[in-house]
């Protein structure tokens, strides 16, 4: 299989886009805001340029292709990686309205079921509930860490303060 240069070019292209954007934000700034960024950004553009040139040479020699097989493959669906990414994004958005404990429970349950391909659901249900509850007990109840709080945390606080 040829070297998948399409995937390898993602980071350099991101780096070039970000560096050019960064330069645009300091173009009219005082020299103190520019000096270090122009130096670092200049070197970054240079090494990205060298890498792109190298890729062009490899493509010309037929040693590589613009494929992205090293980044995306059928394995991402088979292993449940896409599902895990979806539940992780959901976790980030749901933790504020639902609170730490409930969001963690739902995330752990959904992710583990996806990764286990629907097997051992009762075990995963109990495990997710235990881990989420332990997380609440250690971080919120014992150490009063300011995690996002929701219905569960508020109810437990009311229950505990009323004895």
């Amino acid at each position, binding site marked *: 299989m040829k070297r998948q240069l399409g*995937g*390898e070019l*993602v*980071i*350099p292209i991101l*780096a070039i886009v*970000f*560096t050019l954007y*960064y330069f645009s*934000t*300091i173009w009219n*700034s*005082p*020299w*103190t*805001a520019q*000096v*270090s*960024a122009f130096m*670092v*950004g200049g*070197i*970054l553009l240079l*090494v*990205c340029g*060298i*890498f792109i040139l*190298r890729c062009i040479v490899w493509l010309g020699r037929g040693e590589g292709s613009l494929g992205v097989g*090293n*980044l995306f493959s059928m*394995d991402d669906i088979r*292993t*449940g*990686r896409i599902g*895990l*990414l979806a*539940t*992780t*994004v959901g*976790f*980030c958005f749901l*933790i*504020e309205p639902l609170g*730490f404990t409930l969001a*963690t429970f739902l*995330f*752990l349950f959904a*992710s*583990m079921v996806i*990764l*286990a391909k629907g097997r051992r659901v009762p075990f995963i249900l109990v*495990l997710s509930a235990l*881990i989420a509850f332990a*997380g609440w007990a250690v971080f919120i109840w014992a*150490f*009063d*860490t*300011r*995690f*996002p709080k929701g219905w569960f945390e508020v109810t437990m606080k009311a229950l505990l303060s009323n004895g």
Partner: protein
Amino acid sequence: MGETASLLVEVFFHTIGFWWVIIPTIFLGLIVGGIPGFSAANTIIILMPLTLAMDVETGIVFMVTLYCAARMGAGIPAILVNIPGTAGAAATPLDGYPMAKAGKGQQALSISFVASCIGGLLTTLIALATMPLLARVGFYMHSVEMIVVMLFGISLIASIAAQDMVKGLIAGFLGLMIGSIGTDVVYATPRGTMGFLELYDGVPLIPALVGLFAVSEAFLIIEKRVIISEDAEPKSPNWHDTFEGVQIALSRWWHIVWTSLIGLVIGVIPGAGASIASFVAYQQSRTYSKTPEKYGTGHPEGLIAPESANNGVTSGTLVPLLVLGIPGGATAAIMLVVMQFHGVGFGPSLFQRQPEVGYGMFMAMAVAYLFMFFTILPLSRYMSHVTTVPTIYLAPLIISFTLVGGFVPREYMFDMYLALAFGVLGYIARRTGYHVAAILIGVILGPLLERYFLLALKKSGGDITVLFSSTLGNILWIALAISLLLPVWFERRRKRQATEVPAE
């Protein structure tokens, strides 16, 4: 002299009497150090009411033990699941994780514990003996000298880049560029913030650490059933592996000594800290090694260097705090606040007015390391089994607890999204052969380098030759040049010798 010695002995035995504080605090420190976002500093802040209610001696013992144990705890997930608990342990997985994957997690943990304990204990004793001398190091380290020290850390990017120089440099300089996000230090001009107010203070380190290491690793490990390689022999907990790790570490005692001294000296410099120390120690260890090609593949010396250095920093940080009243880091600053509440005044007169407090802090550190050696070592037998937990359970657990850890330091929901974005960047980097450690080194050292660079230029009125204007700075420049050139020279000599020896 005799009076001081008898006082030290008295304080030592008195501190041992606090075993009931030290032992539970060690376990608390291991937990908070191991979870990104829950640093010793945060925990002392959370437990501030408790600390203030304690008498001064108990408070000192508690804070110092928590500080040391958290530093050591940060290395545990770094070795077992490739997730450093703090930025100070970011160089630990470079060699620790390959050992764990090869089924040598127990040995790796033992090596890390021995290096941390001996490094921490040794530097504590050296700091105690040479306190007045060490305290002056901070006075000699100005912006120019600090730039060279930073470059020592950044030159690790070159070491990491050795396998593919261009890709390594892209990763490192992309990290430096990301580290430059935020307002500039002089005129507060926002740069590269994409309009997010949350980035005006720069890119927060914990979400970067969580994303680059934890989230991206969690997405990768699900490809395998367990972290440990399938061909590695599954083992039940045994003392043999633990003692093998101890033996490996002890046989490299000199390595522990000199890398922990790097940590001590860097720890004395206010604002430098464990992340710089561990990168510098790793880079120096690789430079002067006879087998630099083994680094990054699970080489014990690559694990010893960052662990002994970041524990050397703990004692170094206390020196400017006690002698000058200048805290060398966040935890030291919080200690200063708590101690001032108890009426302890730091500075040169501390050792005349309250010698039991001044020496007591170092003694608490020494005793904590002694206790840690005997309490943590047996645990390595069981901790290493994390690598055999099925990844379908481990990956979601890592993501949920580390992402929330990214939220804790600033309590912005934005930081969780940022950690996720870094996770995607880290995943792409790992899948396409870019080193996430090089990106992180850039993110950590980028803003520091810029600050000192600007300070130097402002002082000289924009004259770049200021970088070569001090004697100490020039000595450090020469040392940097030597440490960059030596590996090249060693490599050439090795190749020449290999070609001269006829094949049998």
